[in-house]
């Protein structure tokens, strides 16, 4: 049997009909020629041929497949039924679409950031080489994945075996502008082997090779990313060969990487890849690459086919002592050296790349996936209930069909076809919704200064997930009602026809169970939503120790201004003073480490010559910083103009610092030293002031001990300056700041941020969780309310007679309302008990994401229960009121 014929079986049948007709005509002709009358001739011909319809049927059967045909029939029938009930179909498809859409969207994100491997050649062969446990490493850390230093990378490159290719890379950003407000490109430092290791192809020109990355290179070529090429050059092939300005230095573009290749970091897309050897050109400091305490690289390798990750790790472990011994930094203290030499290199699978997005969002995403699954389950339970109601409305029809010989299986199949149609339509709509949802989620997390790139293209996993959901939902909400519908004795169903005084309890067991399940799952979702909303509220209302509104932050890069080291302190002071005089700016100050920015600086201190346990956090600020931030002094004074490089070194500490390290006596009479490399001067910092505690890295942490040093007393100032300004109109002030800075030093590059948007970014993950779980909670509550309403209305309708009798016997309306409400109250109570148990367990898995709330927070639970009870009361009051309006005489006469 051929498919072509299967699909053309109707035309084929017509063809056969004509052929048989032609036989009859010929036979008739012959019979007439033999002398029969035309009628007799035609009859004889018919007899000779046999029944044409039977012959055609036989041939038709040869052309078809019974199951497929019956299935198509079922689908057509289902479609007709659904078209007759557009309201039901719309509710069903919409609720499924929301459930499937939310599920697929979250899965799409998880797939993109966690599951999918990098779009490079044989990603399963890729491993990352790093120090297994790098805790205790000291030095400068740059970029998002500072795993290794350049000397360590060179050691690995020269000594490691078992790799067919090895490459190092690090993240950076490069200013594309030639002065004024900076425009940053997402950059990566790459060793020459980066592109060959990954097996990436160029879209234009060529990619970097090993010989592009040679120490001391003068003007090495750079490779740009495909999207950057499209964005900046409109995809012009002539871009190759042009020169690109990076931090003020010009580099020739040698090629463009293939479309779809975004780098090794999932969640970002690189704009420009610069060979490592260009680092001294861009930083303007020679010898940086030899710094043994500058961590900024990640090493990737491709394992040789005959090696395994375990064997490579064993080999790396045996090489580690030698490599580490050769790269001990002279800046390390003896303690640091001990820790450093104890490190061990190892290989880790890297086929899925690295991702800070994954680090921050993997857990929330799994929790969200679990919650969306609950939403889908609730929607399924609801649909199952609706289907049950419809099935019982069709009880008589089904009974008739069973009675005249339809098989049970055939009727189940037919009812399932209807469910499959609903599930299919719901999943298709959900798939579309998912695309929109996941794109908006990424847009929500992305910002100008933190451009995210998540490749959300459909792949087989997402398709399989969504269609799997469709099948699952179909079985979940369709199978039980379909099977149940056929388990009716035809005689009983046809006889009863809605006449029973009251329906038996057993027949409602399933529907009651479904409502209880819906209530329970809704409670879990509502509790979850309230916990995450509470967490966000707690974070937003927590006192960071400063006033975050109306703060403008300008970050400046002075490298191109070419200020010699000796004049930098003065140059920075000039800029800060000029900005402080701007109209609208009430205060301005230099700050090295902006609070809540995620960056930090800590070092061991010595009090009375004794090294203290744990590192306090450090910061360097200029006079007026605390006034600008709105952090009050507890004792002592601010830095003053008289605190200069030639005066006594002074420090301001926060309360926690004073309590932790300066326990005995007045902090203002004490001093501390900062641990410096052997041989470097170790001045005593005289504490001159104590300020209130402030948050340092993030809002969740407890207050840490912080010591502030004076910007004017910095001995080795760098070429970066960060100024924080208090101004009523932060965004309007920025242009004036740019002009003022340009007036002092024309070549300074600037970027702006506001403290409040930075705060918003730090609670972004919490805001996402609160928004999403909040909407899931509302959705779940609404669906569960619809479910309860449906079941209660149905119960009331079925018990019309009973209620009529009760009223005739003297029950008043209030009693009837009470009866119905008691019924739904019991369902609600059962749901809440089950749900509370589930919710406590579920909340515990999310406890790490909560802030200021315990997973079992009683107030949250009380709120959730109250909210659900209110919704349930509303949903059951309407049917109850309807029951109370029943006219006993009418209800009884209906019998």
């Amino acid at each position, binding site marked *: 049997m051929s498919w072509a014929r299967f699909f053309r079986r109707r035309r084929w049948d017509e063809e056969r009909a004509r052929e048989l007709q*032609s036989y009859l005509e010929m036979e008739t002709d012959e019979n007439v020629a033999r002398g029969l009358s035309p009628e007799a001739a035609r009859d004889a011909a018919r007899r000779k041929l046999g029944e044409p319809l039977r012959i055609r049927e036989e041939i038709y059967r040869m052309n078809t497949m019974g199951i497929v045909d019956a299935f198509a029939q079922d689908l057509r029938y289902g479609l007709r039924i659904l078209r007759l009930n557009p309201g039901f179909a719309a509710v069903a498809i919409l609720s499924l679409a929301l459930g499937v859409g939310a599920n697929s969207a979250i899965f799409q994100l998880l797939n993109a950031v966690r599951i999918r491997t990098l779009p490079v050649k044989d990603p399963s062969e890729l491993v990352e080489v790093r120090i297994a446990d790098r805790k205790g490493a000291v030095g400068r850390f740059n970029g998002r994945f500072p795993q290794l230093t350049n000397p360590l990378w060179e050691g690995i490159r020269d000594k490691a075996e078992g790799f067919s290719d090895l490459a190092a890379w690090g993240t950076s950003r490069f200013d594309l502008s030639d002065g004024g407000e900076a425009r940053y490109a997402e950059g990566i430092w790459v060793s020459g082997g980066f592109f060959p290791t990954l097996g990436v192809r160029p879209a234009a020109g060529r990619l970097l090779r090993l010989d592009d990355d040679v120490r001391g290179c003068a003007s090495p070529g750079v490779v740009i990313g495909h999207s950057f090429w499209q964005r900046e050059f409109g995809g012009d092939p002539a871009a190759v060969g042009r020169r690109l300005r990076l931090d003020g230095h010009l580099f020739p573009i040698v090629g463009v990487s293939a479309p779809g290749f975004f780098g090794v970091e999932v969640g970002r897309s690189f704009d420009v890849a610069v060979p490592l050897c260009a680092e001294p050109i861009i930083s303007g400091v020679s010898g940086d690459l030899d710094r043994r305490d500058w961590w900024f690289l990640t090493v990737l390798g491709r394992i040789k086919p005959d090696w395994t990750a375990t064997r490579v790790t064993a080999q790396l472990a045996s090489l580690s002592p030698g490599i580490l011994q050769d790269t001990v930094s002279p800046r390390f203290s003896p303690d640091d050296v001990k820790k450093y030499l104890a490190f061990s290199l190892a290989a880790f699978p890297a086929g899925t790349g690295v991702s800070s997005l994954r680090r921050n969002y993997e857990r929330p995403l799994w929790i969200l996936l679990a919650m969306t699954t609950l939403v889908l389950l609730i929607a399924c339970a609801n649909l199952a209930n609706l289907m049950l109601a419809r099935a019982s409305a069709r009880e008589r029809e089904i009974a008739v069909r069973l009675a005249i010989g339809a098989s049970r299986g055939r009727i189940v199949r037919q009812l399932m076809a209807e469910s499959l149609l609903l599930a299919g339509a719901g999943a298709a709509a959900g798939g579309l919704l998912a695309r929109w949802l996941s794109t908006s989620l990424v847009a929500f997390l992305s910002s100008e200064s933190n451009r995210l790139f998540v490749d959300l293209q459909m792949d087989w996993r997402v398709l399989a997930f969504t269609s799997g959901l469709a099948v699952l939902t179909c079985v979940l909400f369709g199978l039980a009602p379909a099977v149940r519908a056929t388990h009716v004795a035809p005689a009983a169903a046809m006889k009863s026809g809605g006449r029973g005084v009251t329906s038996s309890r057993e027949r409602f067991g399933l529907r009651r169970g479904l409502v209880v399940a819906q209530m329970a799952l809704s409670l879990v979702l509502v509790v979850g939503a309230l916990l995450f909303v509470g967490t966000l509220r707690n974070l937003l209302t927590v006192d960071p120790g400063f006033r975050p509104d109306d703060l403008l932050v300008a970050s400046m890069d002075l490298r191109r201004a070419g200020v010699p080291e000796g004049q930098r302190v003065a140059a920075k002071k000039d800029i800060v003073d000029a900005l402080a005089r701007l109209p609208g700016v009430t205060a301005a100050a230099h700050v090295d480490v902006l609070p809540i920015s995620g960056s930090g600086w800590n070092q061991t201190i010595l009090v009375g010559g004794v090294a203290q346990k744990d590192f306090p956090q450090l910061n360097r600020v200029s006079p007026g910083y605390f006034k600008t931030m709105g952090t009050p002094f507890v004792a002592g004074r601010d830095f003053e103009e008289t605190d200069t490089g030639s005066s006594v070194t002074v420090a301001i500490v926060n309360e926690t610092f004073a309590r932790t390290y300066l326990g005995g006596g007045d902090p203002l009479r004490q001093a501390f030293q900062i641990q410096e490399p052997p041989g470097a001067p170790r001045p005593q910092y005289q504490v001159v002031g104590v300020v209130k505690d402030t948050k340092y890295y993030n809002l969740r942490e407890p207050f840490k001990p912080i010591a502030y040093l004076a910007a004017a007393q910095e001995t080795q100032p760098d070429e970066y300056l960060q100024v924080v300004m208090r101004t009523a109109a932060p965004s309007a002030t920025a242009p004036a700041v740019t002009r003022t800075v340009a007036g002092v030093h024309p070549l300074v590059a600037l970027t702006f941020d506001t403290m409040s948007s930075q705060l918003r970014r730090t609670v972004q993950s919490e805001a996402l969780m609160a928004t999403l779980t909040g909407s899931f909670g509302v959705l779940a509550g609404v669906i569960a309310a619809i479910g309860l309403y449906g079941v209660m209305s149905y119960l009331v309708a079925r018990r019309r007679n009973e209620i009529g009798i009760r009223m005739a016997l003297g029950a008043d309306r209030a009693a009837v309302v009470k009866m119905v409400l008691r019924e739904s109250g019991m369902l609600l109570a059962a749901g809440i008990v089950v749900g509370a148990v589930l919710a406590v367990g579920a909340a515990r898995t999310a406890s790490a994401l909560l802030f200021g709330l315990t997973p079992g927070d009683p107030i949250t639970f009380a709120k959730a229960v109250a909210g659900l009870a209110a919704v349930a009361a509303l949903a059951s009051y309407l049917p109850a009121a309807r029951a109370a309006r029943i006219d006993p005489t009418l209800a009884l006469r209906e019998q």
Partner: protein
Amino acid sequence: MPKKGNPPLQGELLQGTLDLLILKTLALGPAHGHTIAHVIERRSDAVLQVEHGSLYPALHRLEDREWIASFWGTSENNRRARYYRLTPAGRKRLVEQESRWDDLVRAIDRVLRPAPEER
């Protein structure tokens, strides 16, 4: 109509035998269903009385296996008719089937009329 005393064989055709008869008939040249039915009936001296209707599913099956091909043509007395012709594959099949039929007949014959055994 049977000319001898035996009743016509009807519905007793072995599966595949009808196929063989059709293929053999078509080996003479293209023909339409009506002709094929009559040729089989005539050549077997009406012993093999095919119910003419049962021919058509068989034709369909053979065409499906690509042993015969069909086309619309005009019959001797100017009627539109569907003609069948043998394909090369069908010709090969016919040769195979004929030799198998011979084997079968010989085998049955040996069973029915065993040669006198040598003692």
